């Protein structure tokens, strides 16, 4: 059994020095090389200030847009070039137009067999008296489905851009109506008479989409305008009784999915040469033209909700 070494003895051994050197605790050059004494780093206030001043001066000089000669010249050149370019564009377009076939004639290349087919067979195949409605909701219904989704996606994007959280929303609502008279009597009385008329007119336009001018888009916009008027007259408290985010979500979900399912059915039967069970009805009656009336209603609901949602989100960031 070996004898225990004392600490002093151990520190003199080679192993102790080797392991200290290995673990980096001992600096082999200390005391042998000329060194400056180390001290804590202290930022130079003056240099920092000077640097900031120089930076500001450079920035002021670079972005001094009013006294910068070159920038002024560039602006002038830009304006002159853009006006010249637009004049050139007008001239080019007018020359091109002068070679087009004359306006209002039948022989233009636009009036080809596609339009003839729509006019000749449209009433028989879609059952809609309004050929434009028959075209956009039957022959080209896929197009209109994409368009409804464009509206939906636009609403979502506006919601992402303008969304406020709960406290901010309340503040925005307070500051929103600060400069307005609350509960304006004239506006409220006029709105009481006008809003039902406007909304009934919108419903009429939607339901008559296949019988005359109108359809889902214009009728939906009219209904949305009526809702906006109601909101302006009576404030958010009253509209939130029947229209909230949940209403928007469910109305859009059911309308768009109904549109998808209905058109999937008619695409399926059309592609497989099956007989569609949806009756066409007599042209001119209100319940006619197969799927066009329900699709008009679906599109009108989406458009009305979208327009109200746009307005509410612009006003107070959420609805």
């Amino acid at each position, binding site marked *: 059994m070996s004898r225990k070494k004392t600490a002093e003895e151990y520190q003199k051994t080679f192993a102790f020095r080797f392991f200290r050197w290995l673990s980096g605790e001992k600096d082999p050059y200390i005391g042998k090389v000329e060194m400056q004494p180390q001290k804590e780093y202290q930022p130079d206030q003056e240099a920092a200030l000077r640097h900031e001043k120089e930076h500001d001066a450079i*920035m002021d000089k670079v*972005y001094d*847009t009013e006294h910068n000669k070159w920038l002024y010249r560039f602006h002038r050149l830009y*304006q002159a070039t*853009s*006006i010249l370019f*637009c*004049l050139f*564009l*007008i001239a080019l*377009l*007018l*020359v091109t*137009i*002068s*070679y*087009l076939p*004359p*306006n*209002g*004639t*039948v022989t*233009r290349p*636009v*009036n080809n067999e*596609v*339009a*003839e087919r*729509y*006019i*000749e*067979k*449209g*009433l*028989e195949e879609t059952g809609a*008296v*309004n*050929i*434009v409605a028959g*075209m*956009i909701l039957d022959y*080209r219904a896929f*197009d*209109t489905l994409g*368009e409804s989704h*464009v509206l939906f996606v*636009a609403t979502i994007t*506006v919601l992402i*851009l*303008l969304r406020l959280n709960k406290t901010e929303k309340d503040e925005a609502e307070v500051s929103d109506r600060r400069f307005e008279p609350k509960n304006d009597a004239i506006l409220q009385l006029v709105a009481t008479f006008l809003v039902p008329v406007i909304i009934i007119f919108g419903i009429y336009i939607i339901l008559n989409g296949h019988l005359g*001018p109108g*359809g889902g*888009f214009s009728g939906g*916009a009219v209904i949305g305008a009526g809702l906006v008027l109601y909101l302006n007259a009576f404030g958010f408290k009253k509209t939130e009784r029947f229209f909230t985010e949940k209403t928007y979500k469910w109305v859009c979900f059911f309308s768009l999915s109904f549109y998808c399912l209905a058109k999937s059915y008619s695409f399926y039967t059309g592609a497989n040469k099956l007989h569609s069970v949806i009756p066409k009805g007599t*042209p001119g009656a209100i319940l006619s033209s197969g799927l066009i009336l329900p699709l008009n209603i679906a599109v009108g609901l989406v*458009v009305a909700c*979208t327009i109200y949602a*746009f307005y509410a*989100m*612009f006003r107070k960031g959420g609805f």
Partner: protein
Amino acid sequence: MGQNLFANYGEAVSAILFCIGFTNLLLQTNLIKKIIGLNIMDSAIYLFLAEKGYIAGRVAPIVVDNVTSTKAYINPIPSGLVLTGIVVSVSVTALMLSLTIRLYTRYHTLDLDEISTQLKREGK
């Protein structure tokens, strides 16, 4: 130069409107006026398309008294296309206006030059 410039006055007006909108887009620094310029360009395109489908002496494509001859109605296709376009343009306008509101809350100005100057000042 062809000989149909005055017969095609509708298309000529739509070309001029398009260029007015484009000049607005190039020269205005105010964001709202830029958006209005873009809307004017939209309307010019719709006018051009509708002029294409118009045939003199015929009526709108709404069937009256079961007359389905092609000689009676104008071309319905441009109407359908423009109907799509008008509704898409309103959603594009709403999107641009919401971006404008965001820019205003951040920079407190509507001038595009000032916004870009402030951006560069911040070193971005």
